[in-house]
């Protein structure tokens, strides 16, 4: 067997292990200068493995990896199909770009002695998220969920503002309750089916005698994951967490963490329980549509009234997650494609937006909206990236945000819900308000003292920001590649073969 073929066999485990071992290495070496290159290298290996997996999955359909060679019945199985390979690609690619961006931002925002720990935590968070996405074992997903959560709490607590500590503590409480709910649900599933492997659970579900155990399991699991993905009204932890975390950590969290939780919800909704299950008189899709609409409108409105740009973008994230869950609830090919496209597109544009704000924070020392006045004159490239990301959040044609919303609208019509399509468009009008407010301050206000003193962001931060912003435009014009991957994911979730 050639070397490359051997690597191909172990791709699923390389994706997760590279950042995990990288984190250990960073923590052991603990030299400030060495930690960034190690972190980038680990993320690069992981991203390369994920990229290769896309091709392998396109050939084989499903890649199953047995850890330690044990059969799924006994051991843990990593299972990669068209759905999670897309998530793996997004998480690794965005993490890599975030780490490339992070060096100067972290040097400015984190105390010297803590820099290696910061990178170690970034890598652990990345490994946890990738593990959640790749595993085919319900309990293993819980362990990875907690790995990513614990490192996330640490990352948030490293923020400069003392409110970062409170935000991290509150997120720890809520996050742990969510994870525990999830594990209660998994326990009930295990009691009913005698296995933790998702594929085997599905096989055995028809034999389960008590539907009540399944309903309880589904309720616990969905509520637990909903806490992690900040589904309205369980989003209260998110604005503070994103607002006070160090800039680089915010970029990573905003563009990847909630997306992986969305994936896990999709996996359970479609892959395990079946989307059209009704809990008593309540249909899961009905509740999901209602909460998604509430998120789209209420969180967007809240974003309009924020004074801090990071919090404004955080509320916008809650709203954008609403679009993704709406796509899941539509449960038809177009809607699901829209949801997965929006996972990709939102990761790119929110990443670009938070990166731009991180650059402003570096140069001006503030992310308050008033302090951004006139920043477009002194930091034009950063402001352009922020503008592109903002237009993407609205869904202006020519940006990728338009493409994913287009699919969502198509999905709504396919479902015979024209009013839902109207709501998608109507909620975008609110996005025009908060993005418009931001752009007005950035481009048309007289620059303040801080903005006049600011200079353009350093190239090492500017290039990753412009890359993500550029991709937002590129995927808005030529959406063939992401649409194909998202379409394949939707097909697999709905039970077909790509």
């Amino acid at each position, binding site marked *: 067997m050639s070397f490359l073929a051997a690597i191909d066999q172990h791709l699923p485990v390389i994706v997760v292990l590279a950042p995990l071992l990288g984190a250990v290495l960073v923590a052991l070496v603990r030299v400030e200068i060495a930690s960034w290159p190690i972190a980038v290298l680990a993320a690069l290996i992981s991203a390369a493995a994920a990229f290769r997996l896309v091709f392998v999955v396109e050939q084989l359909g499903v890649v199953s990896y047995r850890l330690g060679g044990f059969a799924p019945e006994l051991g843990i199985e990593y299972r990669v199909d068209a759905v999670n390979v897309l998530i793996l690609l997004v998480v690794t690619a965005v993490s890599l770009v975030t780490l490339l961006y992070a060096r100067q931002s972290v040097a400015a925002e984190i105390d010297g002695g803590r820099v290696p720990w910061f990178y170690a935590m970034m890598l652990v968070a990345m490994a946890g998220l990738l593990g959640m996405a790749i595993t085919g074992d319900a309990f293993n997903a819980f362990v990875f969920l907690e790995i990513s959560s*614990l490192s996330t709490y640490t990352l948030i607590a490293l923020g400069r503002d*003392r409110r*970062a*500590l409170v935000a*991290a503590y509150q997120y720890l*409480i809520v996050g*742990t*309750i969510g994870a525990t709910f999830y594990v209660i649900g998994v326990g009930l599933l295990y009691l009913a089916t005698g296995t933790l492997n998702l594929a085997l659970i599905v096989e055995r579900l028809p034999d389960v005698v008590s539907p009540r155990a399944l309903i309880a399991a589904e309720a616990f699991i969905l509520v637990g994951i909903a806490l992690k993905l900040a589904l309205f009204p369980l989003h209260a932890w998110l604005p503070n967490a994103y607002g006070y975390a160090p800039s680089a950590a915010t970029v990573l969290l905003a563009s990847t963490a909630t997306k992986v939780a969305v994936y896990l919800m999709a996996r359970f909704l479609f892959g395990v329980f079946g989307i059209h299950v009704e809990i008593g008189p309540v249909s899961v899709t009905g509740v999901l549509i209602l909460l998604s609409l509430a998120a789209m409108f209420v969180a967007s409105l809240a974003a309009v009234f924020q004074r801090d740009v990071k919090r404004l973008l955080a509320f916008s994230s809650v709203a954008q997650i609403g679009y993704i869950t709406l796509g899941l609830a539509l449960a038809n090919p177009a809607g699901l494609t829209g949801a997965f496209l929006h996972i990709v597109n939102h990761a790119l544009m929110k990443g670009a937006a938070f990166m731009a704000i991180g650059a402003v924070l570096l140069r001006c020392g503030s992310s308050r909206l008033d302090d951004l006045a006139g920043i477009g004159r002194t930091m034009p490239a950063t402001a352009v990236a922020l503008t592109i990301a903002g237009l993407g959040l609205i869904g202006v044609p020519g940006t990728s945000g338009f493409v994913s919303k287009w699919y969502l609208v198509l999905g709504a019509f396919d479902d015979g819900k024209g009013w839902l399509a109207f709501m998608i468009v109507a909620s975008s009008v609110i996005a025009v308000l908060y993005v418009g407010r931001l752009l007005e301050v950035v481009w048309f206000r007289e620059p303040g003292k801080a903005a006049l003193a600011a200079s353009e962001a350093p190239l090492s931060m500017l290039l990753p920001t412009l890359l993500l912003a550029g991709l937002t435009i590129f995927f808005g014009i030529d959406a063939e590649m992401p649409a194909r991957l998202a379409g394949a994911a939707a097909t697999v979730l709905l039970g077909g073969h790509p």
Partner: protein
Amino acid sequence: MSLVAMLASEATRFTIVLVMVAGLYIVIARNNLIKKLVGLSLFQSSVYLLYLLPGKIFGGTAPIIDPRFDVYANPLPHVLILTAIVVGIGTLALGLALAIRIKEAYGTIEEDEVLAKDRGPAGAAARKAGPRG
């Protein structure tokens, strides 16, 4: 199953739910950051019991193969819960560490006092000092 066994199994189930709900209630109702963590630990502990209970089989022995026995307890829940306990310890340790840092930065571990200190102009001035004082 004998009546005693049935009652015993019902009693453990009630205990699990009681601990679960009590823990969750403490997290929500208490204002003290440490007490909240204690509640969170209780809540998690109830889940350990939820997993372990069905692993026990009446008359079963430890899962080590031996010709003298033919009924074994299910070992998998124990392994799972070992992992969950480690996760729980990690969470508790991190939560307590955050409580200490909050105490250093705010001088209190009562949640309402912490939140009140960040409101108003006095809070804005104090915040500038940052968490490391």
